[in-house]
């Protein structure tokens, strides 16, 4: 196998790892926004999840307990968002912003009070976190050209949460497009009045949507602190929630295209990490910081209608009143 192909394989492997939290948050964003609730609080819910997962995994020694606690904490924030946006018909952007700032403040404040380490959790031991899973027959398949290395690097060797994230994409698509709940959820984001006159509660549907978003963001957070990383670090979500939001829009609020957008954005991040300090022909040192801005630029172009046309759910951002 040539050196270039091997480097590419490693980059794709990194892409998958970097895209995982984006995928989970993007699915979360799709559920929330498809029901008509703008969700810029993906970031905050993920950050909260990351902190709680690390804190619980550290104290209990169980990563699974960590994930469950992260999902719960993230759902609490999601319900606050729902309470403000659905029950009190508050401004959804303001509520999301409040939750992001709250999560920044809460994680550090509680972290300092609990662990006295400047807002971090203590580093987690290897049994407290999700470790890479080696698939069957990796060594046996090594001899197979092309497929062997792909199997070893790309398919095998990730932690459980990566596979869960990938599995959740078809599940989300199924839920949205093949179930009665999904049909109603999509309807409530387009014409809530119609759903209401069919005798279905708009509020209850939207609450369920934001709670699903909370669950998914919780897993994303847990992935950051006890899957990919080994402990919580202040502000570790580092804008990933917003990139996920960008992926939702880039994917036009549909699960599979959003997955592809997440993989694309993950790939950009992986490539720019690999090119850090590398001299390229013609342009000199690779401007990796500018490459990291590409997802944002691409979303602006999409929103401006220069690449396709992104049309959001019709009733998004509008509080429903009978």
């Amino acid at each position: 196998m040539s050196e270039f192909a091997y480097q590419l394989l490693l980059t794709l492997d990194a892409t998958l790892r970097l895209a995982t939290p984006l995928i989970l948050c993007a699915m979360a964003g799709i559920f929330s926004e498809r029901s008509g609730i703008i969700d810029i609080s993906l970031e905050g819910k993920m950050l909260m999840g990351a902190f709680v997962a690390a804190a619980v995994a550290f104290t209990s020694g169980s990563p699974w307990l960590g994930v469950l606690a992260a999902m719960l904490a993230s759902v609490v924030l999601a319900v606050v968002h729902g309470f403000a946006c659905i029950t009190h018909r508050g401004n959804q952007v303001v509520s999301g912003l409040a939750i992001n700032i709250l999560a920044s403040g809460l994680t550090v404040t509680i972290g300092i009070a609990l662990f006295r380490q400047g807002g971090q959790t203590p580093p987690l031991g290897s049994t407290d976190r999700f470790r890479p899973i080696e698939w069957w027959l990796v060594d046996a398949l090594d001899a197979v050209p092309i497929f062997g290395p792909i199997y070893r690097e790309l398919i095998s060797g990730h932690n459980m949460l990566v596979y869960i994230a990938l599995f959740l994409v078809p599940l989300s698509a199924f839920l949205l497009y093949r179930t009665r709940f999904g049909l109603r959820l999509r309807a409530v984001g387009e014409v809530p009045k119609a759903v209401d006159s069919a005798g279905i509660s708009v509020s209850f549907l939207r609450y369920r949507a934001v709670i699903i978003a909370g669950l998914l963001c919780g897993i994303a957070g847990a992935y950051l602190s006890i899957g990919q990383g080994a402990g919580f670090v202040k502000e570790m979500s580092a804008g990933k929630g917003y990139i996920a939001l960008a992926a939702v829009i880039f994917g036009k609020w549909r699960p599979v295209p959003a997955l592809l957008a997440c993989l694309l954005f993950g790939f950009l991040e992986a490539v720019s990490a690999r090119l850090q300090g590398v001299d390229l022909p013609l342009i000199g040192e690779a401007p990796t910081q500018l490459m990291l801005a590409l997802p944002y630029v691409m979303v602006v172009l999409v929103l401006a209608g220069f690449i396709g046309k992104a049309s959001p759910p019709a009733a998004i951002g509008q509080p429903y009143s009978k």
Partner: protein
Amino acid sequence: MTPASDLPRWADVVLLPILNLVAALAVCGLIIFFLGENPFTALWVMIKGAFFYSGSLGYTLYYTTNFIFTGLAVAIAFHAMMFNIGGEGQAYIGGLGAGLIALWLAPALPMVLVIPMAILAAALFGAAWGLIPGILQAYRGSHIVITTIMFNFIAGSIMVWLLVGPLIEQGQQSPQTPKFEANALMPKMHEIGGGVFSFLGSSPLNLSFVLALLCLVGFWFLIWRTKLGYEIRTVGQNPEAARYAGINVPKIIVIAMALSGALAGLLAINELLGVQHRVVLNFTSGYGFTGIAVALMGRNHPVGIFLASFLFGAIYQGGAELDFEFQTITRDMALLMQGMIILFSGALAYMFNPWVSKLLKRWMNRGEVTRV
């Protein structure tokens, strides 16, 4: 942007914000209590830290200055019904403008030329960064909230790229520009006026505060006393009616966003020319977002914005004091309080509306009931 309230104006403008603030602080107090500290002691430490110690009032007013700029930025966009969440990025790019002027012109030109030009550059660069999302919203229908969020990140990437690359101080490792020359620095308040302001103590408070006060007055004049202000408010209230009245709606949206960006850009004058004395990474540190809370609490009016800015200034400065007095709670508490205040006075702004209006009605009808 917010549901119409059926309360009398004084209750809507004074009573509700105070109730929301008290609710937000009460929740923070509960959290402090659960963390094992006395919330009232913490509040007292914050008040002392914000007002009583030598120099503390100066610090509070220095933070206030930042919030006035970003609060006005959000408010002017709100008047045109635009939600500018991109104050961070606009201030960041504004800093690039101010920094370039300070670095290039300061050795050659005198202070009276450099500083006004730096102010102009900060405003122009900030305006440009608000203008593009404005144009995309007005002419292409791109949702302003999402584009301004994205522009925050794009600004961040550009600034990192510039500060680790072309603009970095030669021979240094940290991502920042060289120090500005002395004639590009905003004079500190305690150093001017022959000691008139020495009661403020030694603090980073500088002439930018005066600039902020001028902006408050200018904002009031522009919005309520000029044709442009009238058009901005009309577009915000009812774009359809504005169009029928012959107002060029997209143009007004673009202008409002440019003005918004310009105001946000001025933050850089206080932070860079006033305090940091060079362009550094992330000097905007969330002030742009806090501006949203300031505008919401201040009901988009200069007086309200000043009061809300002062409140947030006190929370920032007082919060810093927590570090010295407590083991378990730190200045991050200020961030938590800010989040709570945005939640209660922004998203849950009208939560107390029903029962306040019920109470008020009962109170006003009291006389009649007894007469019957």
